[in-house]
């Protein structure tokens, strides 16, 4: 019975996260399209909202091609590692007062460890990741000095006095830039190289394995955004900021 409850807890976090990832891809495509004065995906659902599910279905039904000279174990292990450790980071995020899958007293250290482990999925983006991890850790250390604890729920509750966005605005900007570098978004997306190659280091993976890379990238983007919100914008209490 206990295992059933644990599995239900984990699933009730993972499935909404995957739905968020799906709709984030559509939102990004519509936003980029409106920046370029065109419509984005607008055929599949109402205003193109179901485009992500059409993409997922197409990718799952494609043929699985792998290079002949590649080491098949490593070829399939890379995306799997990236996806697993991107999703493992959601275990310590508080969605409400006390609503976490695991309320670790060392939650921030756990997030840093999980992000260290997920660098093995793609070595090309690793050099950038390692260099910006130092900046991210320094910014996190400043917030930890404010709250006095590494627990993420305490970090949210400590912002009832003042949101850390107000005294630590320069640190927030530095953390934000470091977060963009950490997830390989523009202007740090040299590792993906979308203007030179088709999709950077993910080009030769096809079908289901590409879905893993795709999900892992957007899941880590959403995770870093949630982490920024928890540390600087008072997490689930942020309704008082606005």
């Amino acid at each position, binding site marked *: 019975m206990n295992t059933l409850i644990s599995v239900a807890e984990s699933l009730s976090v993972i499935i909404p996260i995957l739905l968020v990832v799906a709709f984030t891809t559509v939102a990004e495509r519509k936003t980029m399209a409106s920046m370029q004065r065109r419509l984005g995906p607008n055929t599949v659902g109402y205003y193109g909202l179901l485009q992500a599910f059409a993409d997922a279905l197409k990718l799952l039904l494609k043929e699985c091609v792998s290079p002949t000279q590649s*080491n098949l174990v*490593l070829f399939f292990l890379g995306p799997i590692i990236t996806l697993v450790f991107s999703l493992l980071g959601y275990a310590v995020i508080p969605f409400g007062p006390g609503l976490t899958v695991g309320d670790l*007293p*060392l939650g921030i250290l756990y997030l*840093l460890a999980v992000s*260290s*482990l997920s660098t*093995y999925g793609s*070595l090309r983006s690793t050099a950038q990741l*390692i260099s910006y991890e130092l900046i991210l850790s320094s910014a996190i250390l400043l917030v930890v000095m404010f709250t006095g604890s590494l627990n993420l729920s305490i970090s949210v509750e400590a912002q009832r006095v003042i949101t850390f966005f107000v005294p630590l605005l320069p640190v927030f900007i530095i953390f934000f830039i470091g977060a963009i570098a950490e997830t390989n978004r523009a202007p740090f997306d040299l590792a993906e190289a979308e203007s030179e190659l088709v999709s950077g280091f993910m080009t030769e993976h096809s079908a289901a394995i590409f879905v893993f890379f795709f999900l892992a990238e957007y899941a880590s983007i959403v995770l870093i955004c949630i982490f920024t919100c928890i540390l600087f914008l008072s997490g689930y209490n942020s309704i008082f900021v606005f």
Partner: protein
Amino acid sequence: MSNFLLDFLSLGAILSGILVITSKNPVISVLFLISVFVNVAGYLVLLGIGFLGISYIIVYVGAIAILFLFVIMMLNIQLAELSAVGSEYTQSLPLGGIVGSLFVFELISILPFSFKGLSTFNLSSVSNTFSESSLGVINWFNTLLVSSIGSTNDVHQVFDAAHATDSNFTNYIQIESIGQSLYTYGSIWLLLTSIILLLAIVGPIALSMKTNNTDHLYTLYR
């Protein structure tokens, strides 16, 4: 439940360690080394020192194994030269046997193999620390082999007076307690290790710096 997980983690660490040295592809070796680190980190978390386990992952997996991968990437290893067969493979076994038996001898002389007759207030002994962890299959096998205990029911869980709630004054989380002792009682060791780290940062830069001019001192201050 944590009994079985301890067994899986220790068996996984041993198996990964063996596969590090016996696999042909060096990248696969590094991946099994990462697996050793993760298994040992999980073992440390289950023992109760969560900070040490997570910092194992951050430092070992996140920094040292990446360093190994970069070195392997730049070394241009030809895989055909690496596979050793026949007498080349077995000629290093006697040396391995000698070093391994030395290590096993050291371990046997430190670890306690019988739990009878432990005093409850001997707070600084090794036997008290080991009696608090849950026994797994490997420990059960050990006790079967070298001691006179018949089954694990004979082993008592020692009640540690330091964890009793009526004499517990403050509740530090792990980092606070490490910081409290490291920055006061261990402050000299902290300063020494920081000097060693500074040396490690400055040293390679000074050793590998190329100077074109013959006038060495002038170029440093230009």
